[in-house]
């Protein structure tokens, strides 16, 4: 703690002083040496970033790269460990969102902060209402909505309840709400994640118009097309740090994709040549809809054989999640067929797929991997608690559950207070090891690993990688879905590049060309 404090004074103060004099007047936001850690995970490390007036700056990076952490600090939701954030020449710490709003920062959260059962006008004034003789001035609020929506060309009816609006319009309300508080800098946290393509295009137009009117915009995305369409400059983040800053005029999708997945030293994984056996998983013409009922997986076909690791590489949001959920039985496919060892599991539920021999390391371990309020011992038998030896008929055998947990603790190097500790109390890496241990311990025929090392410390990454290779060597078919190209390159025996919900190329993992894959991932094929 004290060490941090000294570092803080020695490093940041001089920077701040020199910077103030050097910064051009039109610099609206200036971030110097910003760092933030959560436990042992360094979410942001030594970030330098600046935004000029009327400039659109994109923060590009995969989930977990630290983009959200960065903007939350700008908006005062979390406090930095080191570094300074200077807004219009004022480098005093941002106390809370209210302080940020006061200083001209507006933020549109990924989850809209609107009250669904209230009208647009009511949402607009919430928190700074005007009243006359105690009565709410709703007419004034309506007027405000109309004025703002005329001024910025964002059509919204002030009298409609927010829940009756399509998502894209709700977002407009959020943007108008921010604008009603006179923002200089608008932060948009993954604004297009919930939008349809048409809504996305509309939003991009709006962003351009706002910027032309002098509002600066920082927006988070992992979609290259959007960056190239609206941003003036882009910062590429990876593992908490800025790995590249480039004007969009000087780059293209391929260049950005390469930056995003990185040129870091490939994590070395020692493995023998694969000796593939028969087909274990066979997918044919699979179509799966996403939550917005769009075809996220669109005619996907792939085979995975016993004893090989097939890596699915692609920019996030190209149907990977829906693909994995369909195989796991969590999301019924629209059409197509999934076979496991010759058995049709297209319509199977998650329990059926487990029984059929699918081990699933889900992308979102907090939601789909663990029950935070259960003990580790119970979490380790979540999919088998009713099977022998963990139960005799209706009665659970806690001795066996405990023995199983103790054995897996040793085997998978899980570090926790004990087998009865609550799963929620563990660090990300250890949580993931619990999921990995459970899904591997029943010797699945198919091991499906989705983003298996996301948000996990380096030591655990290595460990998990070795276990995946070990599972392959034991004869399992492994389907690895990862947004980290490095991970796919170092693990996969065969690589399938996914774009727009289908496989656009397949190649052997050995000697696969990174640039080539980057190009394919960007949709250039």
């Amino acid at each position, binding site marked *: 703690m004290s060490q941090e404090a000294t570092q803080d004074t020695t490093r940041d103060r001089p920077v701040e002083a020199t910077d103030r004099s050097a910064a051009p007047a039109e610099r609206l936001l200036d971030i110097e040496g910003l760092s933030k850690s959560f436990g042992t995970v360094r979410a942001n490390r030594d970030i330098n970033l600046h935004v000029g007036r009327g400039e659109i700056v994109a923060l590009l990076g995969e989930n977990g790269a630290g983009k959200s952490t960065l903007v939350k600090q700008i908006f005062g939701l979390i406090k930095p460990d080191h570094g300074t954030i200077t807004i219009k020449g004022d480098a005093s710490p941002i106390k809370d*969102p209210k302080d940020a*709003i006061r200083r001209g920062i507006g933020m549109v959260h990924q989850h*809209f902060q609107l009250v669904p059962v209230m009208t647009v006008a009511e949402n607009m004034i919430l928190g700074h209402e005007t009243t006359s003789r105690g009565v709410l001035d709703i007419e004034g609020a309506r007027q405000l909505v109309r004025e703002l929506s005329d001024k910025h060309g964002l059509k919204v009816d002030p009298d409609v309840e927010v829940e009756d609006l399509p998502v894209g319009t709700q977002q407009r309300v959020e943007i108008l709400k921010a604008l009603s508080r006179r923002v200089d800098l608008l932060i948009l946290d993954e604004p297009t994640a919930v939008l349809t393509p048409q809504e996305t295009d509309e939003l991009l137009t709006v962003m351009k118009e706002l910027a032309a009117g002098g509002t600066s915009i920082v927006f988070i995305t992992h979609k290259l097309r959007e960056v190239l369409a609206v941003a003036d400059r882009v910062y590429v983040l990876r593992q908490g740090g800025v790995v590249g800053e480039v004007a969009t005029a000087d780059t293209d999708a391929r260049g950005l994709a390469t930056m995003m997945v990185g040129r870091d030293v490939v994590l070395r994984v020692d493995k023998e040549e694969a000796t593939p056996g028969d087909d274990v998983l066979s997918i044919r013409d699979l179509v799966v809809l996403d939550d917005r009922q769009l075809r996220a997986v669109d005619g996907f076909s792939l085979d995975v054989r016993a004893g090989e690791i097939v890596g699915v590489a692609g920019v996030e949001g190209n149907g990977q999640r829906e693909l994995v959920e369909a195989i796991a039985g969590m999301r019924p496919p629209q059409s197509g067929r999934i076979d496991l060892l010759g058995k049709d599991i297209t319509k199977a539920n998650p329990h059926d797929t487990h029984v059929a021999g699918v081990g699933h390391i889900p992308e979102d371990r907090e939601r789909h991997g663990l029950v935070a309020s259960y003990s580790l011992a119970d979490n380790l038998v979540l999919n088998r608690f009713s099977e022998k030896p963990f139960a005799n008929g209706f009665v659970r055998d806690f001795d066996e559950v405990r023995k199983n947990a103790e054995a897996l603790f040793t085997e998978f190097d899980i570090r926790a207070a004990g087998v009865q500790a609550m799963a929620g109390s563990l660090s990300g890496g250890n949580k993931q090891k619990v999921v990995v241990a459970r899904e591997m311990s029943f010797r699945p025929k198919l091991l499906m690993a989705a983003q298996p090392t996301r948000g996990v410390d380096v030591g655990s990454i290595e460990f998990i990688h070795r276990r995946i290779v070990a599972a392959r060597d034991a004869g399992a078919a492994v389907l690895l879905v990862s947004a980290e190209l490095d991970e796919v390159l170092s693990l996969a025996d065969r690589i399938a590049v996914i774009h727009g919900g289908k496989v656009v190329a397949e190649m052997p993992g050995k000697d696969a060309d990174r640039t080539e894959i980057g190009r394919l991932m960007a949709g250039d094929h």
Partner: protein
Amino acid sequence: MEWLKRNQITVGAGLVILVAAYVFYAVNSNVATSMFSGAWFFAVPLVLGALTGVVGERSGVVNIGIEGQMLVAAFAAFFSAAATGSLIVGVLVGMLAGIAMGAFLALTTVKGLMDQIIAGVVINIVATGLTSFFYRPGKVLSANMPQWEVPLLSKIPLIGDVFFQSGPIALFALVSVPVVHFALFRTRWGLRTRSIGEYPSAADTAGIDVIRMRLVNVTIGGIFAGAAGAYLSMEATGGFERGMTAGRGFLALAILIFGGWRPLRVFAAALFFGFTNALASQLQGVISIPQQFITLLPYLLTLIVLAVAAGRVRAPAAVGQPFVKGEGS
């Protein structure tokens, strides 16, 4: 005008009922007056209890302790009035008792993050225990509660007799309904209250102190349950008995749901309950049904109403969920 348009069904139904009531009055004025008076007599504590529920649940705090709040207030009101000989003191102490119970619920659930249902159960159990333990028979009030006549309004046929010639607490209930309704939908307080009950994190990012507002609302909201208790022991009966609320707090809860967490509808729902009760009493002489079934009627009706209404009305979205700053944004 716009308001009329939006609430045309409610207003239409209200008019139909009003016309029917006056037709009834024209046919037999005595029976009509006594039936509607009986309905309102039964409905007063339900309306008041439900208003406590409205204020609390609109702020996001479930209150199943209304029954206990009412019982403690009935006890406190009666015995303080009997001890001091002052009716005003009794009524005020009753209201304060309701507020104190509200404060208990607020502190345990909003500050202490106790489960709201459990806190409500605790209130009910504690209320039964305390009031039974300290109950002493044989006390009487020095005087009956006065009957007030509201000038002019009390001269209206039927409505005047039913609503505007009554005790002070019943009048307080009558006034409270439109006041709370207006406050909830037309004032800054109301807008903020609804926002913290629907989506507290949105309120929080708008700079509203969710915790403080919930504490204040749940506490002050207890005044209505307090008044309901005072009504039962002082205005309706003039005596306290063990367990005298007899499930009225839970009826109020049912009415709260049936009324869709809106004071005006809650008022209508309570009258409906009261009217069924009065109707049953009237029918007693006409067709022979045992007395027990008559008293059962409101509770049976509760079951039916809730079964029908439960799927249609929507509770404030955040009701029952503790708010912890910084989570979920």
